[in-house]
């Protein structure tokens, strides 16, 4: 009897709370992730498609695991970019996960690649490195991890399409100088450590010229084996 009274009281209290909430929704922001991530849009675009600023990356359609890892790294300061570090500092894990999934599930069309400003032989060198790597210098091909279509692999490997050369080159530089790091074994730091500045320019330029593939989605986990261990993509 006592328990039933309590249960009834709780039910009534819930109803009252529900009524109150319903009355308030008219004057409340939309209860959506789109409204919650508006702080991201001046730099990353309304659907994560990127903006005219070449240093701000596209987020849309990247694997949620990759995006979540980046949000965690920005929050802790492991990946350094003060405007991002500041925005995320006091946000809890489940919320960052929800943000990652939101942008992973957005699929605005990939942009038309901009005509490259570098010489043809530089582009050819970039294509060579990205497609075949350079075994003599311990440089694996980009496609060996980021996929034959460069669309990435679930859950942790990002696609490399729809990014501008300036952004790719800045990130490779950050890996080389250690201002961008990831979970050990930090595969990208190892790879970038073998690249020269000329390599970086060439690879970034070639990647930025790639047209959108028919299916830009990251391939499922385990579609192909990675050439070496990677902390961001546990087996």
């Amino acid at each position, binding site marked *: 009897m006592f328990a039933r009274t309590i249960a009834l009281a709780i039910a009534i209290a819930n109803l009252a709370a529900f009524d109150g909430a319903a009355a308030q929704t008219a004057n409340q*922001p939309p209860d959506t992730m789109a409204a919650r991530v*508006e*702080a991201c849009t*001046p*730099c990353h675009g309304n659907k994560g498609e990127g903006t005219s600023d070449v240093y701000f990356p596209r987020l849309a359609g990247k694997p949620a695991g990759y995006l979540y890892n980046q949000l965690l790294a920005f929050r802790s*300061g492991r990946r350094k970019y*003060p*405007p991002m570090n*500041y*925005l995320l500092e006091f946000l809890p894990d489940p919320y960052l996960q929800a943000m990652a999934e939101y942008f992973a599930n957005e699929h605005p069309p990939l942009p038309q690649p901009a005509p490259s400003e570098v010489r043809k032989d530089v582009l050819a060198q970039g294509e060579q490195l990205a497609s075949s790597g350079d075994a003599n210098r311990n440089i694996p091909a980009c496609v060996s991890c980021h996929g034959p279509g460069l669309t990435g692999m679930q859950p942790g490997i990002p696609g490399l399409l729809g990014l501008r050369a300036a952004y790719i080159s800045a990130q490779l530089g950050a890996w080389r100088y250690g201002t961008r790091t990831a979970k050990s074994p930090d595969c990208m730091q190892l790879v970038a450590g073998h690249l020269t500045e000329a390599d970086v320019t060439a690879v970034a330029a070639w990647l930025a010229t790639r047209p959108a593939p028919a299916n830009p989605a990251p391939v499922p986990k385990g579609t192909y084996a990675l050439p070496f261990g990677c902390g961001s993509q546990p087996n």
Partner: protein
Amino acid sequence: MVSKLSITLFAIVALTTIAHAQDKSSDVIARGEYLARAGDCTACHTAPEGRLFAGGRPMPTPFGTLYTSNITPDPDTGIGKWSADDFYKTMHSGRFPDGGLIYPAMPFASYTKVTRADSDAIYAYLRSIQPVNQKNKPHELRFPYDNRQLILGWRTLFFTEGEFKPDPKKSAEWNRGAYLVEGLGHCGMCHSPINALGGTSQSEAFKGGLIPMQNWYAPSLTSNREAGLGDWSIKDITDLLQTGVSMRGVVYGPMAEVVHNSLQYLNDEDTRAMAVYLKSIAEPSPPPPASSTLPTSESSLLISLGKTVYDKHCASCHGTQGEGKPPHWPPLANNQSIEMQSAVNPIRMVLNGGYPPGTKGNPMPYGMPPFAGLLSDNEIAAVVSYIRTAWGNRGTPVSAREANELRSAPLN
């Protein structure tokens, strides 16, 4: 038979006693953890990606960089060899157990008010956590501040040792609030003006000030023209402290840290007590605002540009009349933090945007976009001037130079 029974009974009694003792000590530890939350110890004593309370967090100050200390129970590098007496004396008098002077970045001028029983509970909690063997990093202070003897002068000027003394003329709730705000909460560390010597005088307590190095303005808790809570309802104050958002405004910047790490964990009674106390210290008669340094014709042009910027970028969330959609999209009309004499916070919010903290009561907060990349210095100054003067707001216009200077303010 009899003896067997008595042994069994004895064993049961003994076990019960042990269990009882453990219950009691786990209660003390739980209370200590709660109080350590109220004191926000973790904000300084845990480094980003570091182990809990192992210290090592750099604290930039105008005098150089301090590194926080390891307060885990590790005997060699932490406080494992400290007694409860040592811990109390450190909290209470701002001296290490060997008598050495502690830099006043550690808020001992507030913690001195903590009772012995509460200090013992925090001590018991700190004894119970995982010890971490991590040596303290030496401070990097410039000459002459690297001479700890200078702290003696600071102490003479700014430190009054002594536990909190309840005011018998006030309610128990008010006194509890005062104890938390003035003691463990150490609110005065930011919400009081800091003078050139890095100190705060008693008469200036809670009157607001620019936080050194961070370039955020911690508004006065006593002036209703700033963050004085005299005309706030108790519910709005407790909402702000517990969830980070309220019908009157939202916390960002350093206060988001305080809500995230500390205040959201306080129970309803303590939060309410703090609200009652904070509401009571607001002074009724506000001083008149300082007059603007901008000539009138220049400021009216600025404000007219500001309205254009506002209607394009801000009105969709904050409303054409600055009414917002509180609590998540804060109102700007009749919002003290927009109108107050220092325009640092509204300028920084427009430049850097921000998220309120994710809390139990508001786990998925709405964020304000950063406009540093979209708006020029002049547009920033214009829109801030507009929101400070529109809809009956009584703030003053700001200049493009002020906006420009804050572009380089540190973000973390």
